[in-house]
């Protein structure tokens, strides 16, 4: 599939109504984007109506639909709990995914167990579908570790804070899959801000040149801290892929069905040995960048309100109710499950032990290093000197 054919076959539906250009001035400065409505792959309207797309049809059972809904609800509940825990002083920082549940659950549920995920630091929903214990995600934000899980037990790499670095790790890993002759695939998550990074562009180059089985999943949540997407690019992000020689597609990032269908298609393409795909999930970060951020300084309430109308969870709920795929008992049980999850996370964090002092010196090297050994011994002696003092 070429970019051209993908674009040509897109529906002309004005689906979400969100214009990329927000002012006449910026439209004038950015001719490539001028007058362009976002062309989104969409399977579920903001009102919860199921619509068709010629390239990305998907047929899910009621149980599968309820599963996606459950994933999104629990992820949002977990995220809200983490935000509260930060406010209560239990976490040093939190990067909320509020509003991005569909992009993460949809793409995450497209993965097979043997696929590998390279996240940023906001992929709590993807971690959830990979089976990473949510409490483990909080370790780095609480300051007890820099990771918190074994990447290979869930094929979910550690969170990466330096923007865009992980896209190259994903590409290298995908190159390894190809060398192994396996048909697994890799997905690399990043944001609209990361698209400006050299590493992301180098990842595009390497993956295209080596035909690596990797899907680049860009969650364009419209803001890189305080900078809008217009400060990162003069063309819609999915169109970047064309210059690197692989397809790019923009999907409604608040539509879990479309995110699932588009990601599944891109992964299948990778498995067939046809190389990378760039998926731009057009979505919105409803909260702050992190708990240290103050979005009131750079964006308007009306913007958030407009996006709230496209809430990914509400739209799937409307669809489930409209089609009779879920009853009141389901929603009530899920509410109870959410509360239980919140409680478990809250208690898990509060009971999370501080690391042992000697952890400073652990795992610096796999094969050991004489300087680390020397400093470990000095530190141990220093700590022991206080213990002696207390005894006296």
């Amino acid at each position, binding site marked *: 599939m070429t970019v051209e054919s993908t674009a040509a076959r897109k529906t002309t539906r004005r689906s979400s109504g969100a214009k990329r250009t927000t002012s006449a001035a910026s439209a004038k400065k950015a001719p490539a984007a001028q007058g362009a409505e976002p062309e989104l792959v969409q399977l579920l309207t903001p009102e919860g109506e199921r619509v068709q797309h010629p390239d990305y049809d998907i047929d899910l059972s009621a149980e599968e639909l309820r599963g996606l809904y459950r994933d999104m609800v629990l992820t949002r509940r977990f995220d809200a709990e983490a935000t509260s825990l930060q406010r209560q002083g239990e976490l040093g920082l939190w990067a909320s995914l509020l509003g991005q549940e569909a992009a993460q659950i949809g793409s995450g549920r497209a993965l097979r167990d043997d696929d590998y995920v390279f996240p940023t630091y906001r992929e709590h929903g993807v971690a959830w579908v990979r089976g990473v214990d949510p409490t483990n995600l909080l370790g780095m934000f609480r300051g007890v570790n820099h990771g918190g899980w074994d990447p290979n037990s869930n094929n979910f790499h550690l969170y990466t804070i330096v923007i865009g670095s992980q896209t190259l790790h994903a590409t290298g890993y995908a190159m*390894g899959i190809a060398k192994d002759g396996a048909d697994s695939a890799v997905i690399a998550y990043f944001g609209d801000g990361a698209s400006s990074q050299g590493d992301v562009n180098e990842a595009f180059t390497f993956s295209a040149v080596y035909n690596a089985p990797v899907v680049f999943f860009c969650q364009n949540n419209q803001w890189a801290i305080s900078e809008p997407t217009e400060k990162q690019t003069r063309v819609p992000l999915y169109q970047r892929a064309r210059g690197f020689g692989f397809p790019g597609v923009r999907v409604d990032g608040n539509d879990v069905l479309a995110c699932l269908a588009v990601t599944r298609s891109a992964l299948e393409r990778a498995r067939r040995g046809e190389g990378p795909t760039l998926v731009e999930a057009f979505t919105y970060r409803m909260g702050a960048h992190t708990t240290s951020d103050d979005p009131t300084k750079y964006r308007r309430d009306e913007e958030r309100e407009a996006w709230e109308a496209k809430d990914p969870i509400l739209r799937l709920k409307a669809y489930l109710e409209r089609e009779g795929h879920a009853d009141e008992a389901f929603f009530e049980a899920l509410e109870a499950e959410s509360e239980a999850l919140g409680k478990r996370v809250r208690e898990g964090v509060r009971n999370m032990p501080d690391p042992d002092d000697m952890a400073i010196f652990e795992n610096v090297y796999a094969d050991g290093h004489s300087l680390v050994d020397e400093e470990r011994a000095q530190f141990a002696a220093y700590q022991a000197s206080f213990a002696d003092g207390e005894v006296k």
Partner: protein
Amino acid sequence: MAVQKLPLAKALNESLRKALETDPKVLIMGEDVGKLGGVFRVTDGLQKDFGEDRVIDSPLAESGIVGTAIGLALRGYRPVVEIQFDGFVFPAYDQIVTQLAKMHARALGKVKMPVVIRIPYGGGIGAVEHHSESPEALFAHVPGLKVVSPSNSSDAYWMLQQAIQSDDPVIFFEPKRRYWDKGEVDTEAIPGALHQARVAREGSDLTLAAYGPMVKVCLEAAAAAQEEGKSVEVLDLRSMSPIDFDAIQRSVEKTRHLVVVHEAPVFYGAGAEIAARITERCFYHLEAPVLRVGGYHAPYPPARLEEEYLPGLDRVLDAVDRSLAY
């Protein structure tokens, strides 16, 4: 044919060949490493014999080379990447420092990073800007990295084998102006550990500590000093992280005088670290302050000035005289 006389570059080539033969997970990656065999021909003939899947010509993007090597290591491969010249490593510095060096610790030991980054470094070949630098201190300062540099063909062969076998990332600095120096390589020898210093010349009056390209200069200085009746010991440090301080201490307790020599700028350089540590360890043995000979706090100069910038025989001997005069 266990013992051969090989130029240093050829010894590296043989070492890489051995690694590719021994372990199917070893990969060579870098710009021009394939058909051309690298700009210094260190990878000459390897792609022909091991194929494009094992010896990989990379796009011209250093961060990409190191970043994808990290991913390949996560998949179980052992990439050996070539950075074409010292001054070109900086686009990859972010990946090396923020990712490669920390991955093992961040994963609480659950993943290994057996990545070797080969960097031809140092001056003395009349090159243009960015082709003659000695950035080893920038890497040695980073926890999680090991930093080594061979000074001769035998070490080139063996230390590269050891670096590839290490589960830690190793920055492997190759003294490019010694690439064509020949030396004996015993491919069946049992090598010393990667981090151990080597006494390159025994002496009793003063210790010269150096690594990489400066070992040869120090050996020449020791020979010249001998003619003046001074017995100078030369230590080839081989490893800048870790540094074999025990070996330096042993030597200094004997000679009571230490001069550290490197091409990199003296300011914040390896010599500063060695001077500080050896002063702590050998305060009552030293008869003179630890002296340093190295580059200046200035950009590496144009080639017509590099002989003035680089430590040569006279500057080293001058430092020897100053130390012994205390």
